[in-house]
Every structure is written in C-alpha cells, then in structure tokens.
C-alpha cells in the first residue's frame, strides 16, 4: 500500500493478459465439457468428460499422438546430431566456413509452406526429380507421399533440413564461449581430439544442448503446416499430427467442444513429454555444473 501508483501501471498489463490469454483459455476449458457445434448449429450442452472420453478411446487420437511423437523424436534427434557435427566443423574453421555459416542458415529463414510446396514437387512420384533420379539408375519409383512409412520419412527429412540450422546456430554460439585454456591443458596432457570432445566439449555444452533440444521438441510438437501441405495427414490418417487433427475437428467440422478437449489433451501430452525429458536429464545437468 506504500506505492499505490504501481497498481495503475500493473493493472492494464494484467487486463490485457486476462483478455487475450486467460479468457480464451477458460472459455475453451468450459467448451471442452460441452457438446458444442457451430455447423450444423447446435446450442452448447454440458456433457462432463464425454469429449475427453471419446478422444481417449479413439484410435485416431492415439494414432495422431504416435505420429507426432515419431516425427518429433526422430527429427529432433537427427537435427541435434547433424547440427552438433556441423557446428563443431564450422568452429574448427574449415575452408569456406564463413560461406557455410551463412548458407546453412537459409532453410531456417524460409517459410515452411514454401518449403513444403517445393518438397511436394521434389518428391512427386510422377514428375519429381527424386524418382526421376531413381529411374535413371534403373530403380523403381518410390511412393514418397502415398505410402505411410515413406510419407513419414519425407516429413522427417523436411523437418531436419529446415531446423538443423537452428541447432547449428545455438551450438556454435556455445562453442565460442568455451574457455581456450582447458583445451590447452588437455593438449599438454596429450589428450586426443576425440578425448577432448567427449571429455570437454560435449559435457560443457550439455546445458545449452538440453535447452536446444527442449525448444525443438516443443516447437516440433506444433508441426502442422508441413504436414498439411505435403500429405494432408494421409494416406488415411497415417501422418496426421495432433495439431492437424485439432484443425480438422475445429475448422472443417466446427466441432468446438471436441476440439477444445483435444487442445487440452495436447497441452497435457506436451507437458508430460517436457517433464519426463527434464527429469531424465536432471542428473546429467547437475553433474556438469
């Protein structure tokens, strides 16, 4: 009460947060307990946990969870491994390092929709250059976008291609902050480059690695545009992700109740994965301090 003026400054910000974040959140939480459709129009009706029950017992929901998790974990693992390797190479001042540093960042700066449209042409089984190349070498055309396994492979490839630069950028920044004297001491002790990497570089970059992977996992869970353009979630629903499923329910069928429940289940799924990830990593992070 000593400085009441501070409330004058805090309240507008609090109201903005309330209006743009909390109100929609509470509204959708309420809607998730209702049978609520805009098309065909039906007045909202309280149905308790029925929307949640329907989703949890639906094979399509679990299919979307598995598809999302598969794409996220494989793509992020590859992004990290490749990104780390490239960052170490760039840090070692390979010839043309400056050029590589700029060009490697270009995919990350491009629109996912534009990339997906180009990739859809590249992996087209009739006119795409990838299948043309296979045909040139006498190999059969591969159903890149029409076979569930290949389609997931293409989605992972596109994700890796676009987002590995993000890993490169952050790991490179981490590498540049490592103290030089530790490496000099290791060299005096005749440590091989391999030993230096596993004994110094990797452990010291563990905190930043954990952050990079965490950001990429959270971001990748939201994957939608790439899937929408490349496969539309098909064939069938074999590449449908959680966000695309929510989009189909909300904006194709206008099933507001079910979509709200799906959004909260999505939130819970991401929180579970995030908490498990941090719990698994905690001992290593504490050791590296």
């Amino acid at each position, binding site marked *: 009460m000593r400085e009441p003026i501070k409330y004058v400054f805090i309240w507008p910000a609090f109201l903005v947060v309330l209006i743009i974040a909390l109100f929609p959140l509470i509204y959708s939480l309420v809607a998730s307990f209702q049978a609520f459709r805009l098309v065909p129009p039906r007045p909202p009706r309280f149905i308790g946990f029925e929307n949640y029950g329907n989703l949890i017992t639906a094979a399509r929901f679990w299919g979307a969870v598995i598809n999302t998790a598969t794409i996220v974990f494989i793509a992020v693992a590859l992004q990290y491994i490749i990104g780390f390797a490239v960052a170490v190479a760039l840090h070692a001042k390979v010839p043309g390092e400056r050029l590589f540093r700029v060009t490697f960042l270009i995919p990350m700066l491009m629109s996912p929709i534009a990339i997906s449209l180009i990739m859809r042409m590249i992996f087209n089984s009739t006119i795409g250059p990838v299948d043309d190349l296979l045909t040139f070498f006498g190999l059969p055309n591969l159903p890149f976008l029409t076979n569930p396994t290949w389609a997931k492979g293409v989605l992972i490839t596109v994700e890796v291609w676009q987002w590995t630069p993000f890993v490169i950028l952050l790991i490179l920044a981490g590498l540049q902050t490592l103290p030089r004297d530790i490496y000099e001491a290791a060299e005096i002790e005749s440590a091989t480059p391999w030993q230096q990497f596993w004994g110094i570089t990797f452990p010291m970059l563990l905190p930043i690695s954990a952050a990079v992977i965490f950001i990429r996992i959270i971001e990748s869970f939201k994957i939608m545009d790439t899937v929408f353009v490349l496969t539309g979630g098909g064939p069938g629903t074999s590449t449908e992700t959680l966000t695309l499923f929510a989009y189909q329910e909300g904006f*194709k069928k206008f099933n507001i109740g079910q979509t709200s429940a799906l959004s909260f289940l999505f939130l819970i799924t991401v929180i579970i994965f995030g908490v498990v990830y941090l719990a698994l990593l905690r001992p290593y992070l504490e050791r590296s301090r």
Partner: protein
Amino acid sequence: MHRNTSLGAVIGGGLVAALIGGAAFAQDAPNFDGVTLNVGSMTGPFIASAHKAAAESWQEATGGTVNIIEFPFGELPTKYLAAMVQNDSSFDVITFAPAWLPDFSPYLSEMPASLREDEAWEDIHSVYRDRLMRWDGKFLSQTMDGDLHALSYRLDLFNDPDEQAAFKEKYGYDLAPPESWDQYYEIAEFFTRPDDELWGTAEAFVRGGQQFWFFFSHAASYTNHPDHPGSMFFDPETMTPQINNPGWLRALEEYKKSLDFSPPGSLNANSGDIRTTFAGGRVAMNFDWGDTGTIGADPEQSQVAGSVGSAIIPGSNQIWNYKTNQWDTFDEVVRSPFMAYGGWQTAVPSASEHNDAAWHYIQWLTNPENSLKAALTGGSGVNPYRLSHFEDLDAWSAIFSEEEARQYLGTQRGSLDAENVALDMRIPGYFNYTEVLEIELSKALAGEVEPQAALDAIAAEWEKLTDEFGRDEQLAAYRASMGLPPL
C-alpha cells in the same frame, strides 16, 4: 485452318452478341459506383477465371468493383463458414458446392424474386434449378456451372481399324465407348501399354482431390435402384447408412482396380491431374466433369485435340436392392449418370452489406451470354447448365470439331435427362460425413485396410453422426434433398 477460321468467326459473333446483350443489360444496370464486392472462389484458373471475365464487364457497366478472393478447394468451406458463423461481412458473394448448401443455409440470403421472373430463369436445366438451387423451400443459390461425371475417350484410338480388330479378336466384341463397368475395365486393360507411355484410364484418388465423387460415380451404377429412389446413400425411411452394402463394396473394389490401369503415381492424382493426363495423350479414357472435354479439345492445352469423344459413364445390369438384400438383374444395362458435385453455385451471405449489388453481379455472371462464353472457355471450369448452352451447336463448334461437339453436348444433356440420374449426397453436417469417408477410402486405396472394413467403419461413423445430429431432422433433410415427400 478451318477450325481457326470458324473459331474466329464464332468468337467474333459471340463477342458482338455479348456486346449487344451486354449493352442492353448495361443500360438497365444500376449504378454501384463506390461498391466493392468481395467474391470468394476456388483458386484459378478453374471458376476464378470465369469470375474475372464477368467481373470485368460488370465493373464497366455498373461502376462497382469486384475483388476476387481465391482459396484452394479444400479450404473453401472453412473460410466461408468461419466468416459466416461470426456474421462477418468478409464475403459478398461465395462460390461453393450444392452439397454444402444445407450447412450454409442458415447464413445465406434468399434470392430476390425479381431474378426468377425472366426467360433466363426458365433457361436453367430443371435438375440444377429445382433440385440443387433450393433448400428448405427457398432459393438460396444460383448455379454458375453444370457438373456431372461423363466419360471421355480418344477417338483416334477407338476409331483405329487396327485397334478395333485387335480388340475384337481379344474380347469378342466391337471396340466402342463402354456401356458397362466390365467393358470399361476390359478396354482399360487393352490400352494399358506402359512401354508406349499409354494407360487405360485415369481417375482421381487423392484425399482432398475430389476423390470420393469418383467413388460415388462407380457406386451409383450398383446402388441407385430405379425402383427405390433416394436409397443410394441411406435407407430413406430409417436413415440407416447403405454405404457398406454389397453394391458399395463392389464399387470400391472396382474403383481400386482402376489403379491397375492408371499411370504411375495415380494414388496422388486429383481431378485437375487427370485432365492434363488425358490432354497429354497418356490415357485412352477417363471419366470426369466436362472439363476434360473442353481442355482436351483445346489445341493450346492438348495433344489430342480433335479426337475427344464423350459418352455417358458406364452402368450395370445388376443393382443392389436394399429392401430385399439381393442383387436385381435387369435385361439391359441401366445407366445411372451421377450428378457429381452438382456444379459450382453462387450465393450471397446474409451478413453482406451489399446484397443488391451482390445478387446483380450473380445475375450478370450467370446470364445466358456470359455463362455461354465461360462454358466455351477451356479451363474456366464452367460446364453447360442452361438449355440454351446445349442447343447452340455452332458456338460449340468453335472449340470442338462437329463430331466432338455433338458427342459432348449429347452426353451432358443425355446424362441430365437420364431416367435413373443419381443425385449427390446433400445433408446437414456434410463435412462430418465426408471426412470419415475420405479417410477410410484413402486407407482402402493404399491397401491399409480391406474394402469391407473401410466401408463398415464409414457406416458406423455415419450412424453415430446421424444420431448426434438428430435422426428425424437428418431423415427429413435427406428425403427433401432426394426429392422424396416427407414421411
């Protein structure tokens, strides 16, 4: 040369007629100076180009402005509904499918009576005017394109004496446009020659690429029983889904079989792809909306111009009887041409702030002169739907040879007038019904599930949706859409 001369003459004549007609219309045109109409359309050239052509002259005549907003086909209902349910005036005119009308109807304005009082109104074929432009007793939309599935085939191949002799020797009957699906597959097999870059047929198979209408066209032949009208999709007395009955199963198995005679990668083909495939001379036949005919006949877009034959899609002499749960056999093949999609329609959302101008624009877009010009433009996506369109053989000779024009118009009109013409499904909650259909269809085509399992899954979901939306309401709406009286 002759074709070019006649093309110039007819287009010139058409333009003069359009200018005279347009001038007469323009004299009466109200002044919409300062009014900007936002018109929603599918991404061009299909349909959007027809809007652009009409918008140009409408702007000159009325002083108004037309802003055409284009979206990919799969995004159209989402964009429209998102605006309309919020009473948002983003669109003054929307272009959409008749099947979406039940879901759009609460948000559309009724067509002014003045638009239904002239000869141009009577000139619209009754299947479009009386069956598809009306919902719940009100005229809410105006057809701007006539759509049904018809067969296109290569005259150069079918009329080749060597091909005819070889076909007769192999199959024991004359090579001609197929009357039944059995013949369709024998002809498709005969012309499938990958070494020559030639395949038997082309159909759309990709989810979101107008896929399920092709499946419906197969199914109409086996499920649209002439003695039980309106029983193709649901039992018209109980709303029990019919989609997993043996007629539909046979249709799905055959639809899948078409992949064996289609070019590689066809599982990813949409309706636009199969038009270019036909025009590129890679297939002997396809079935599609009328666009394959007009694109195939256009020398600038086609390698088979001058050789585009048209025929009503094949039928069957066996049709599943849902009452007796048996196949009924008919003495002759019953043709059940399917009113796939039913043509693009235009309507004015209730939220539009320019209702008068919007309906005037629609009247302009669809008047006999402008609509004929659009129908004669390959790639406009507009197919004939007015009686005058079918009768003006001279105008069609501008883009077709006489034989092509005669076959094309005869097929379009013959399909519409067929006794057992099959109407498309129109029902509230349409997108819910078709979503599961597309998903299961894609799984079956990709070999992930057996056809019967896919159809059973669709039927189970349809049953659930009907219960959720209210069985009595859905039944009443379905019966009305099929032209059946209330129970």
